């Protein structure tokens, strides 16, 4: 399936959850990342149960560093 991850189109396997996406994308500092899913910030308790599907937009945000929020 095709997802928009950090503004770029990415091909990923079907059935992935947000937790799985963090692993699949080898996201830096996974304990610290915030995830915006189709315009909504997810709570960490939702990572495991949020299934991704074709066309979903996912942004990885970090605000612990102090620089401007990255994406």
């Amino acid at each position: 399936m095709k997802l928009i991850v950090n503004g770029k189109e990415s091909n990923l396997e079907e059935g992935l959850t947000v937790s799985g996406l963090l692993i699949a994308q080898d996201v830096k500092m996974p304990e610290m990342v915030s995830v915006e899913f189709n315009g909504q910030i997810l709570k960490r308790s939702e990572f495991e149960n949020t299934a991704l599907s074709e066309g979903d937009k996912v942004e990885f945000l970090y605000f612990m560093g102090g620089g401007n929020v990255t994406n």
Partner: protein
Amino acid sequence: MKADTLAIHGGFAGDRETGATAVPICQSVSYAYRSAQDLADVFDGKTPGYIYTRIANPTTSALEARLTQLEDGIGCIATSSGMAAIASVVMGLVRTGDKIIAASGIFGGTVSLFENTLGRFGLETVLVDAADTKNFAKAIDDKTKLIFVETIGNPRMDVPDIPAIAKIARKANIPLVVDNTLTTPVLFKPGDFGADIVVHSTSKFINGHGTAIGGAIIDTGNYDWRKGIFEDIKKLSGKASQLAFLSHLRNLIYRDLGGCPAPMNSFLMLQGLETLSARMSRHCENAQKLAQYLQNQPKITWVNYPGLTGRRFYNRVQELFNGKGGGLLTFGVGTKERAFNFIDSLKLAKNLANLGDAKTLVIHPASTIFHEFNAAEKEKMGVPADMIRVSLGIEDFEDIKADFQQAFERIS
């Protein structure tokens, strides 16, 4: 994961290089990068990373991640104290000429911050009796920027109807800020009942041992900053989404005020969190038992504990705090002199200005933490001259009772 598990494992999956299971204390002011471009990228937010411990620190980040999960929020900023947390939140939301509404039974230090310190910069604070929820709605006008309450007023021991106050705040499109220090997420998650921002003095039950000062700010995700009344925060939401408020603090207010925690203190808070749930059960159990003991003690004139059957806030405690009344209670002995005599007669309980310690603590609020307020102000804040406040520790209750019993025997 359940809350008790998150309190131990949340925010840290073990050190990848060393296998350390305790969160390492990253006692470093700053963080070096290989190239000038790498550091510039972190400043620009193109790469995640640390810059300077006043802004963020790896040990503190682990604490923030754990507190975020425990409150089921979207993000957290840990601060050097609870007062720093409240100051950062309010200064991040108000400007000169703005107004805030606060419950009148809150901690005197917080009232002083609002009225005296922030009052110097033109903030107007309206204190209302939180027992009548309508008071909040009546006080709101177009200058009002937030409502502030404590889950249990310290030391008035009133329990505001947070779900109803949250609805009033939502209708006015202003955030409800809730100080959850006395209940902690073990008893109550304000975000589940509509609160927008949660603040803590982590020095109290979260630390649990009286070893470090700290605070925290958690955004519950309930207030949509993209549609809020704060134009500067709304502008940030384009990039930061619902994290706009915390980004506004991290990149401006909190960064500039300098209220960051020491990494060692963040470590002590993380350790405290691991046993918080077990300790809260004992704090509440001991408070309930002492309140019941005091009810039958002829030398007292009154006792106030929201967990006592038939009391004004008993039903709310059942509904909101899972039936637990917290670890704090107050009682009166008729006069200030008798209160002083009683405190001087205690042997086990410590007479000091703190709460939430593993040790049982007492204080005479009117002459200490409220000493700067006059008699009329103290009456309005629910602090009579004969009041003794007790923060129940986790000692064996029989020893606490014996200490109180021998102190009562010593006063006339």
